[in-house]
């Protein structure tokens, strides 16, 4: 059962085995897995409840409904980074591109050495990944759903001898509608909204949407429940309260909201690591303009990736957006804007994702709201610049006549020879338009309680029965899209809780 703001007429009191905060890649998974094992679960989700019937072509309307702060969340720093995060039932799985990667072996090896997570090997995680992949239908994107933009990038990359491959996505009968980031209107993308959430609900999980968790109750060093408020989606005013008494509390609000909630509740751990180690996979985009028609909005959003540079921590991938978001990211206006945008149907947009080597932190700002801070370091800045230069090379090799760049002092180039300007300009971090959708690392998992927040099963080192099951537990960046890894770890966390039920429920 899913109840929204308009269904609530009074304060709610619940008593359950488990209270889960957040319904995205982590929260929805633990809720369903535990419900399947017979536990009573209450799930609180801050965002609203929308289904494919609500998803349409009006990008701004969808952004307002599905994205936190209408997509204007910002990571403060040098430069400020635009951060897109879902705030709705299903969380960021509703608005992501659905790319599914298992955490690479080399990233796990780093987790071993840096965090003492020796049990987390690919072999150990295999059954959890398989379970998730089966449930959300992870498969290679069919060629017939890939648009011409992907074919052009592929053509350019292959001419240069770069390794490329189709991506694996959580999709069933995807037809390439290109609406992934505004909610799949065809229910092809298998987000938690249409997989884990309905299943959890069938099994008796009570799901409250428009409900912001506010207080985590701790008694004698043990989590005992959560208090939250129902928020009117129209006015933002809080009205009724929900009070959940639970034997286990699982926080899965994402790597910014989760530490924010812990810090707000003064649950800073002895390690002082809550909110630190903020990782974000910075990325930047470039647009190639071709002489032939492309219609990049026909075909799946991210159907292909270029893996040639993955060992260096760089992934390249196509990603197309409607005219509004595209135009606002370009430095043009007036006549010049229309002149450029008239080539909209001859554009290919792609992005560079960099595995970060620096970290930031989350701290509490005005109103005790979490504010992320991240200052991109020189190495990662160079990687982004290099990635954009490589992308430009691929565009020209594929036949582009010009490339629009994310650099304030160099907005476009018109030939392969001009790529050298990217390096000659001495581009500084503040000159680059950087975005991200992958926040990680802020409640890091680790064997040593003095250097981590949770243990290898996501349980707080300092507060019993308090678990975290989202990307905030990643101790180091993974360099690939994190959705699948979050889900596999969440499955493992639920499995652990169930197999140790005596400790938690009796």
């Amino acid at each position, binding site marked *: 059962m899913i109840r929204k703001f308009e269904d609530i007429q009074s304060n709610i009191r619940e008593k359950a085995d488990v209270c889960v905060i957040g319904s995205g890649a982590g929260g929805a998974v633990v809720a369903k897995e535990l419900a399947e094992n017979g536990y009573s679960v209450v799930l609180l989700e801050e965002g609203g409840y929308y289904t494919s019937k609500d998803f*349409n*072509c*009006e*990008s*701004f309307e969808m952004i*307002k409904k599905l994205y936190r*702060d*209408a997509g*204007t*969340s*910002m990571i403060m720093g040098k*430069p*400020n980074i635009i951060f897109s995060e879902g705030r709705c039932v299903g969380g960021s799985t509703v608005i992501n591109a659905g790319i599914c990667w298992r955490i690479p072996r080399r990233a796990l090896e780093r987790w071993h050495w840096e965090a003492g997570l020796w049990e987390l090997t690919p072999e150990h995680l295999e059954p959890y990944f398989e379970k998730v992949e089966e449930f959300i239908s992870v498969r290679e994107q069919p060629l017939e759903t890939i648009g011409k933009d992907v074919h052009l990038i592929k053509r350019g990359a292959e001419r240069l001898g770069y390794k490329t491959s189709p991506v694996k996505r959580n999709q069933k009968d995807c*037809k*390439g*509608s*290109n*609406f992934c980031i505004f909610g799949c*209107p*065809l229910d092809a993308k298998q987000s938690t909204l249409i997989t884990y959430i309905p299943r959890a609900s069938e099994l008796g999980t009570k799901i409250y949407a428009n409900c912001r968790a506010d207080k985590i109750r701790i008694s004698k060093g043990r989590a005992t429940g959560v208090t939250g408020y129902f928020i009117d989606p129209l006015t933002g005013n809080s009205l009724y309260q929900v009070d959940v008494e639970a034997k286990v509390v699982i926080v899965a609000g994402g790597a910014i909201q989760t530490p924010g909630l812990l810090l707000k509740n003064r649950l800073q751990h002895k390690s002082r690591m809550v909110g630190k180690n903020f990782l974000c996979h910075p990325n930047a985009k470039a647009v190639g303009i071709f002489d032939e028609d492309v219609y990049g*909005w*026909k075909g799946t959003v991210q159907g292909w990736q270029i893996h040639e540079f993955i060992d260096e921590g760089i992934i390249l991938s196509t990603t197309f957006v*409607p*005219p*509004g*978001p*595209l*135009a*606002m*990211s370009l*430095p043009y*206006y*007036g*006549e010049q*804007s*229309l*002149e450029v*945008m*008239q080539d*909209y*149907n001859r554009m290919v947009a792609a992005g560079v994702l960099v595995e970060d080597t620096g970290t930031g932190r989350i701290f509490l*700002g*005005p*109103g005790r*709201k979490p*504010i992320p801070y991240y200052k991109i370091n020189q190495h990662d800045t160079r990687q982004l610049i290099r990635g954009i230069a490589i992308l430009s090379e691929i565009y020209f090799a594929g036949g582009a006549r010009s490339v629009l760049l994310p650099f*304030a002092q160099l907005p476009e180039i018109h030939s392969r020879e001009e790529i050298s300007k990217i390096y000659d300009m001495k581009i500084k971090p*503040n000159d680059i338009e950087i975005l991200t959708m992958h926040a990680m690392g802020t409640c890091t998992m680790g064997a040593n309680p003095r250097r981590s927040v949770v243990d290898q099963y996501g349980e707080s080192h300092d507060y019993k029965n308090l678990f975290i099951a989202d990307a905030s537990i990643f101790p180091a960046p993974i360099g690939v899209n994190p959705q699948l890894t979050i889900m596999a770890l969440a499955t493992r966390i639920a499995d652990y809780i169930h197999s140790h039920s005596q400790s938690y429920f009796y």
Partner: protein
Amino acid sequence: MGPKTRNILLAIAEIAMPRSDEFYLAVEDKLVDFVEDATYHLTPLLRRLFPLGVYLFEYLAILSSFSFKPFTRLSINRKKLYLDSWVHSRLYFKRELIKGIKGLVLFGYYSQPEVWDHLEYDPASYLEGLRS
């Protein structure tokens, strides 16, 4: 949003709004409505800072070399020069501020159905075709 802020945004929209000799859409008021609606959904901090940023843009024109008048009272050409000086400024905070304001104006413009027709962007028909 107060009338003064709306006036400044209208003046920015008049300059920033895309146009060409062949295609002109008089939607400046709609764009200001769009920006006003958008600001309602910003983070609480940005919502408070937005009008301050708009006022800063308006009154810093007096201190600039453009003619010691606020932005709204400049001539069209001087408005363009002034806006351009912010878009291409070497100062990060100026570029960021105008990027936000201008960005919302452009988002609003490129969300108009007439502009979609002009760009031959028809996602609704495409989606309908996929459903059938």
